[in-house]
């Protein structure tokens, strides 16, 4: 997994949920595509912070992907407030694609 987290077991569950979100153009899930930068849980406030990026600025699919991330996390963690933070710093690059993702693209 490419994302860094502060709670391994819960983050694994979050990443598994995000693996269901597919980039519609590429057909690859956004975790293996390397769009998820970080997942943090604030147990005191019951908040889940997801820091992510998109492959390009103003990606035509961007709004839909962000919405899907929100929805996937909210369904998996209904008691948490989901806060998605979109960043382009650092920008996405091919190096972020996981080995599994590269194998998928190479099919």
């Amino acid at each position: 997994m490419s994302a860094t987290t502060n709670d391994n077991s819960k983050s694994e569950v979050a990443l598994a949920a995000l693996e269901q979100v597919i980039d519609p153009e590429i057909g690859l899930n956004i975790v293996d595509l390397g769009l998820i930068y970080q997942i943090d849980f604030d147990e005191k406030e019951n908040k889940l912070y997801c820091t992510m990026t998109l492959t390009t600025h103003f990606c035509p699919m961007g709004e839909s992907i962000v919405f899907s991330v929100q929805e996937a996390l909210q369904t998996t963690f209904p008691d948490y407030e989901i806060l998605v933070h979109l960043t382009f710093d650092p920008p996405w690059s091919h190096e972020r694609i996981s080995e599994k993702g590269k194998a998928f693209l190479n099919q």
Partner: protein
Amino acid sequence: MFPPGANTDAIKTTSYKAVLPFYAYAALSFLVATVLMLFSAGQFSGHYFQPHTLAITHIMALGWGTMIILGASHQLVPVIIEGKLHSERLAYASFALAALGIPLLVRGFFIFDMGGPAQWGGILVVLAIGVYFVNLGLSIAKSKTENIQAIYIFTATAWLLLTSILGLALLYNFSIPLFSKDSLHYLPLHAHLGIIGWFLLLIIGVGSKLIPMFLISKYSHTKLIWWIYVCINTALLSYIFLFYFSNNTTLLLLPVIVLFAGIALFAKYIYQAIRERLRRQIDDPMKISISAVLMMGIPILLLILAIGLLSFIAKANMSLILAYGFLIFFGWLTAIILGMTFKTLPFIVWNKVYHRRSAMGKTPTPKDLFNHTIFKFMGIIYIAGLLVFTIGILSHFVLLLKIGAALLVIAAFLYNINVFKIITHQPVEK
């Protein structure tokens, strides 16, 4: 941060409402152009300066090529300049002006009446392009990032504006003597400003970003893209210089060679992008778009041949010039649009229909929005039509011209079926 239910303005792209009318208009224009060509096939065996040929060329250049590029660019400019489109209202204005102006202009050419309605049509087209130019310029000015592709698009649009202003002046030149010579004399200048300055420069600029992006290629070479920019603009500027200051036709080979060098460098760039791609599968729309890059070379070879034959065989030369123009508008330009339509339009509509229905595999994918069998047939029939019509032009064989045009009508009809299938798509759950 995007809290639950918050708006996502920071990543919101241009509304589909500002983009889809351009696609629909362009698709219908392509069909109209092919139908007119079927009924005017005989005119393609003579001189290129014929009323119907002029009308068809302008439907292809403005109604088809320019309208779809303007539509797609309203969506893609934010991706390229990494900033929002300045105004969607200006996009609507640009569409309305062009949508009214193009038929008036084309009607004028078709009946060869360059009076009032045609002139108004020309004015509306110039205004439509002017509005787009302002919208683009302000969008780029607001953007925080500078990149070579934005410079390509801006320069190409400046050339388009110049082309349309010259075209309007040529139209007036039929009734008021604005130039020292008749409009026919300036036609090659008007045509090449549009073909090279607008279409070629813009397609290379946008293609240099989108083709590697769709292929998920690691390849990037900004310096090479700059060199291509220099080659194309140098070729065009030197052509303009020679047009005004030289009568030596052989000298025209100089800009042609520089242009050919630019295209060869772009072909090299695309070849490297393909080689270094992470995505093994290349889908059918991408295959058509990539083959269009190779198609760029064919008109250039015909042009070199035409220049070489200029003083020897007048009739053969006319056919070569007609074939050259035909292969630019119906070959290279159409091929790239046929491919790129299905790499852009399904995503725009998918986003419109499903952006709040999640991308979690419960909905169709953008690729499911059009019929792939129809797409394949369209591709095969289009290539057959293109070949038969080109042979018809070169051989002056009217029956071949009619068969070729009929095949292109079918290809345009199939294209329209898929385009309107996408545009009218209603939500379905898988």
